[in-house]
C-alpha cells in the first residue's frame, strides 16, 4: 500500500516540477531489467517465429491455425470436416494432432479428454485480443515438458492496460461466415481489466454437414500490486458446436459439442536486474458431448496445475532458470472408460536451464526437465544448444535434444466399444502398456540480417528421430484394438523464412519447408513416408497503400500427402488469400473496413478420408468492420 501511494505522489509531484535540468540529469530506476526483456532471437536456444498483432490483423486470419500458415514448417488443415482446424509442425503421426504444446498466457490448452489435442484449445482464442504468437520451431521438452514434442505455440494476449476502451467488430460473408465481437476494457494505472465476448461461425467445407459456431467470453485483469509485483487473472469459457457427417452412410449426421472453462492466476515478482519469480495456478474443465446416441465419447475432465519458476543471474554471463510444476488430471467418461469411468493421473516436473555467455560471440544453453508421471513413471529430457555470432548480424546455432510425449489417459486406460446397426464403429481396449513416445533431435540454424537490404533470414535444418510412436494395434488373438508403441520414424529436412522490408510500406515473407519422412526399415507402415507433404511454400505480401489503404496477399503451395490412411491422398494444392482494408476515423473512433477473399484462385480439395466425399475448400469472400473507441 505504501508503495502504491508513493507512486501516485511521485506522479503528482512530477506534474508540479517546472522544466529544469532535473529532467535531464535525474537518475532513473532501471525499469526494463533483464528479467522483463524478451531474449533476442539470435540468443534463443532454438528457432523462433513471431507473429505480431499487426500481422495478425493484416493477414485477415480468423483462427490461430490460419496464422500458423505463416510459420515455416507448419502444415494446416481441418479434422473430419471443416469445423475443426488443425495444425502440426512437421508430421504429427496422429490424426488428431497432439504433439504440439500450445500455451495461451502461460496456460497449456491441451485437451485431457480429447487425446491430448491442442487444436480445440487454439479455437478458444479471440485473435483481436492477441498481442503476439511466438512459435518455437523444434522439440523443447527440456523447457516446456512433454507435449512440446515437436514444437511450442505461445499465444500472448494483450495486456489489459493496452485494451482500455471499447471495440466491436463483425464479419459476414460467403460460406455462412458470421463473426461478432464486443470488448470493453477499463481501469486505472494500478489495475486494468478486459472482458471480451465473441461468436465465430461458418458453414465449413462446401457441400458437407460441418458448420460450426464457437461462442466464447474471456476476462483478463492485471494488477500492479507494488512496483515489483504483478498479478494477472485470466478466466473464460468457450462453447464449440459443430456438425459431423459420418463415414458410414447409414449413420445420420449430427452435432457435437465441446465446452471449456478455465481460470488462471499468475503472480510475477521482478526483483533485481535479472531476478524474477513467477508463480501460477490454473484450473481447467472440459466437457465433450455428442448429440447422437452412438459413438459417444462424452465426458468431463478437470485439471489443476500449480507451477513456479525462478530466473536469475548467477554470475556475469551466467543466467539460470529453474522451477517445477504439479499437475492433477481427473477424467470421468463412461463412454471412453466403460470398465472404470473415473480416471486420474498426477504429474510432477522439475526443470532447469543454464545460459552461459563465455564470450560475447557465444551463447550456450544447457537444460533438462525431469518428469514423474503417476502411471508411466519417470523420464528426463535434456537439451544443449550453442549459438555463435559470426558477426552481430549473423548467427549460427546447433542443438541436440530429447523430448517426450507421455501417453494420455485414453492411451493407457481406454475401454471404448460401439456398434450401431451391426456396424462396429469403435472397439478399443488399452492394455495399459503404452510408454512415452520419444524424439531425438539434432538441428542446425542460421539467423541473419542484411540491414541495407532490409532482409532477415531464418534457416533450420533438422533431423528428428521419433521412437516408440503410439499406434492402434489389433493383437491376433483379440477382436479389440490396443494402443502400443511401435515404428520408429525419422523426419528430416530444412525450412526457412525470409522477411524482406525493401521499403517501410512493404513487407514480404517467404517460407519454404522441405520435409522427408523416412520410416524405419522395420516399419509396419512403410507408406508413412507420405504422411506429410514433401514441401510447403508460402509467400505473404503486406503492403500499405496511399489514403490509409492496406493490401495483403498470402499464397501457399502444399505437395500431396495423407494423414489418416495411405489411400486418403490430398492432392497437391495452392491457395491464395487476398485482403484489402482501409483504416479511417469517425470522430475519436478508429475504424477499419476490410474485404477478405480466401482461396481467391478457385479452391481445392483440402481433406480426404475414406467413406467421406473429398472435402473442398472453396473461394469465400467476407466483409469486416471493426470500430475501436
Amino acid at each position, binding site marked *: 500500500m505504501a508503495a502504491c501511494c508513493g507512486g501516485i505522489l*511521485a506522479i503528482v509531484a512530477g506534474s508540479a516540477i517546472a*522544466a529544469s535540468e532535473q*529532467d*535531464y540529469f535525474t537518475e*532513473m530506476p532501471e525499469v*526494463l531489467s*533483464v528479467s522483463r526483456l*524478451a531474449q533476442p532471437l539470435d540468443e534463443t536456444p532454438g528457432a523462433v517465429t513471431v507473429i505480431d498483432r499487426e500481422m495478425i490483423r493484416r493477414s485477415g486470419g480468423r483462427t490461430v491455425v490460419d496464422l500458423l500458415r505463416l510459420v515455416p514448417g507448419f502444415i494446416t488443415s481441418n479434422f473430419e470436416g471443416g469445423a475443426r482446424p488443425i495444425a502440426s509442425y512437421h508430421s504429427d503421426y496422429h490424426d488428431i494432432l497432439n504433439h504440439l504444446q500450445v500455451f495461451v498466457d502461460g496456460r497449456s490448452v491441451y485437451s485431457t479428454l480429447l487425446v491430448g489435442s491442442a487444436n480445440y484449445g487454439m479455437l478458444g482464442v479471440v485473435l483481436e485480443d492477441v498481442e503476439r504468437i511466438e512459435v518455437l520451431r523444434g522439440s523443447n521438452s527440456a523447457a516446456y515438458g512433454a507435449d512440446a514434442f515437436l514444437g511450442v505455440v505461445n499465444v500472448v494476449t494483450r*495486456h489489459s492496460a493496452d485494451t482500455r476502451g471499447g471495440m466491436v467488430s463483425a464479419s459476414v460473408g460467403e460460406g455462412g461466415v458470421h463473426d461478432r465481437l464486443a470488448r470493453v476494457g477499463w481501469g486505472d494505472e494500478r489495475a486494468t481489466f478486459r472482458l471480451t465476448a465473441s461468436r465465430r461461425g461458418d458453414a465449413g467445407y462446401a457441400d458437407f454437414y460441418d458448420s460450426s459456431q464457437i461462442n466464447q467470453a474471456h476476462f483478463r485483469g492485471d494488477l500492479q500490486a507494488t512496483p515489483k509485483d504483478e498479478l494477472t487473472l485470466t478466466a473464460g469459457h468457450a462453447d464449440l458446436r459443430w456438425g459431423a457427417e459420418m463415414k458410414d452412410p447409414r449413420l445420420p449426421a449430427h452435432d457435437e459439442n465441446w465446452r471449456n472453462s478455465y481460470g488462471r492466476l499468475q503472480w510475477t515478482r521482478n526483483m533485481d536486474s535479472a531476478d524474477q519469480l513467477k508463480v501460477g495456478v490454473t484450473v481447467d474443465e472440459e466437457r465433450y458431448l455428442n448429440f447422437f446416441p452412438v459413438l459417444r465419447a462424452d465426458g468431463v475432465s478437470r485439471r489443476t496445475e500449480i507451477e513456479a519458476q525462478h530466473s536469475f543471474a548467477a554470475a556475469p554471463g551466467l543466467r539460470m532458470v529453474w522451477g517445477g510444476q504439479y499437475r492433477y488430471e481427473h477424467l470421468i467418461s463412461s463412454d471412453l472408460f466403460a470398465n472404470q469411468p473415473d480416471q486420474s493421473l498426477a504429474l510432477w516436473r522439475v526443470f532447469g536451464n543454464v545460459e552461459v555467455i563465455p564470450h560475447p560471440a557465444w551463447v550456450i544453453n544447457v537444460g533438462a526437465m525431469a518428469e514423474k508421471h503417476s502411471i508411466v513413471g519417470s523420464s528426463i529430457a535434456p537439451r544443449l544448444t550453442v549459438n555463435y555470432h559470426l558477426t552481430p548480424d549473423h548467427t549460427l546455432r546447433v542443438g541436440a535434444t530429447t523430448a517426450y510425449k507421455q501417453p494420455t489417459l485414453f492411451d493407457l486406460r481406454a475401454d471404448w466399444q460401439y456398434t450401431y446397426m451391426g456396424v462396429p464403429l469403435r472397439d478399443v481396449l488399452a492394455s495399459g502398456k503404452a510408454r512415452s513416445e520419444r524424439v531425438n533431435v539434432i538441428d542446425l540454424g542460421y539467423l541473419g540480417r542484411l540491414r541495407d537490404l532490409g532482409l532477415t533470414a531464418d534457416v533450420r535444418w533438422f533431423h528428428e528421430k521419433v521412437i516408440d510412436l503410439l499406434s492402434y494395434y489389433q493383437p491376433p488373438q483379440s477382436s479389440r484394438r490396443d494402443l502400443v508403441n511401435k515404428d520408429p520414424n525419422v523426419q528430416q529436412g530444412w525450412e526457412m523464412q525470409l522477411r524482406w522490408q525493401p521499403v517501410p510500406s512493404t513487407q514480404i515473407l517467404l517460407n519454404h519447408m522441405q520435409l522427408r519422412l523416412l520410416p524405419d526399415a522395420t516399419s509396419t507402415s512403410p507408406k508413412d513416408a507420405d504422411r506429410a507433404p514433401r514441401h510447403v511454400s508460402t509467400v505473404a505480401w503486406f503492403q500499405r497503400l496511399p489514403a490509409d489503404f492496406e493490401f495483403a496477399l498470402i499464397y501457399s503451395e502444399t505437395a500431396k500427402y495423407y494423414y489418416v490412411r495411405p489411400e486418403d491422398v490430398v492432392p497437391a494444392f495452392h491457395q491464395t488469400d487476398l485482403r484489402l482494408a482501409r483504416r479511417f476515423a469517425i470522430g475519436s473512433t478508429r475504424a477499419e473496413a476490410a474485404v477478405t477473399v480466401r482461396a481467391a484462385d478457385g479452391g481445392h480439395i483440402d481433406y480426404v478420408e475414406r467413406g467421406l466425399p473429398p472435402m473442398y475448400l472453396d473461394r469465400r469472400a467476407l466483409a469486416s468492420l471493426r470500430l475501436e473507441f
Partner: protein
Amino acid sequence: MSGTALAEDVGVWIALSESGGPYAEAAGALRDDLTASSPRRADVRVGPWQDMLAASGKPPQLVVTVGAAAFRGLIEDAQRGGALANVPVLAILVPRAFYESLSSKARAPTSAVFLDQPINRYLDLLRLAMPERKRIGVLLGPESAPLSAALAKAAAARGLQLITAQVGSDDELYPALRNVLTDAEVLLALPDARVFNTGSLQNILITTYRQRVPMVAFAPGYVRAGATLALYCSPAQAASQAAAAVRAFIGGRGLPAPQPAGDFSVAVNDRVARSLGLSVDDAAGLADSLRRQEAQR
C-alpha cells in the same frame, strides 16, 4: 601575447545550483578550459549560487550559472537590486523553456547554452539508428507543445510521419500514449515534466516495450531505465560550448545569443534494442555518423 598585458584579469564566477553531480562536472570542465586558454586571463571562482550572492567586494564581470536554481536565484536577486544585479549572466545546464520564462526579468544582459537538442538532430538520429521506422510518436505536454510546428516541418523534410498527442493533465497521459502507440513505430520522448518524470516513466517504458515500440529519449538516465536510445548534451560538452561563449565575452565581443546544445552524445541500451529485434550501431558510431552528416550540411 600582448592581450594578456592589456588589462587586469576578468572575474568570472561560476554559480552552482547544487554541489556535486553534473554541476561540479560542468563547472570543473569550464574552469579548466578557461584557465587553460583565454585572450585575457580569467579569474575564475566556483561556488554555490547562494554564496556568490552573499559575497562582498568587487563583483565579477560575468556570472555563469550552472543549472536552473542558480539562474533563478541570480534573476530574483537582480530584481531585488542585489549586488550582482548588473552583472551579465550566462546560464548553462538549463532547458530553453526555463530560461525563456525568466530571462526577460533580468536587468543585465543574459545568454544561455541550452540542454535542448535541436529537433532536426533527434530525427536525424532516428533515421540513422532505425531507418525502417518511419512513424514517430510524440507526446506533447505544456512545455514541449511549442515544438509542434518545428517537429512537423522537420519530419516532413525527412519523409517521416508524426503521430502526436497532447497531454494537458496527468489524466490524459495514458489515453494519449495508447492513441500514439496504436500507430507509432517509435516513441520520441522530448523533455516535459508533465509527460516524462520519475513517476510516469515506469508505466510508459513498460507500455511501449510491451507493444515492441522503442523509446528515443533526451537523457542518459532514460537509457539506463530502458529507453533504446538517448541524444543528450553531457555536462562537459555544455561546459566546452560555454567556454567558447565566455572567451568571446572576455574578448570583448559581448555575450553570444542563446544557443541550443552544439555538441551531443548518444547513449544506446543494447540489450533493449536487441530484445526488440533492432540492430542498432553502438553509441560512438551513431554519434560519429550524426556529426559527419551535420558537417556535410
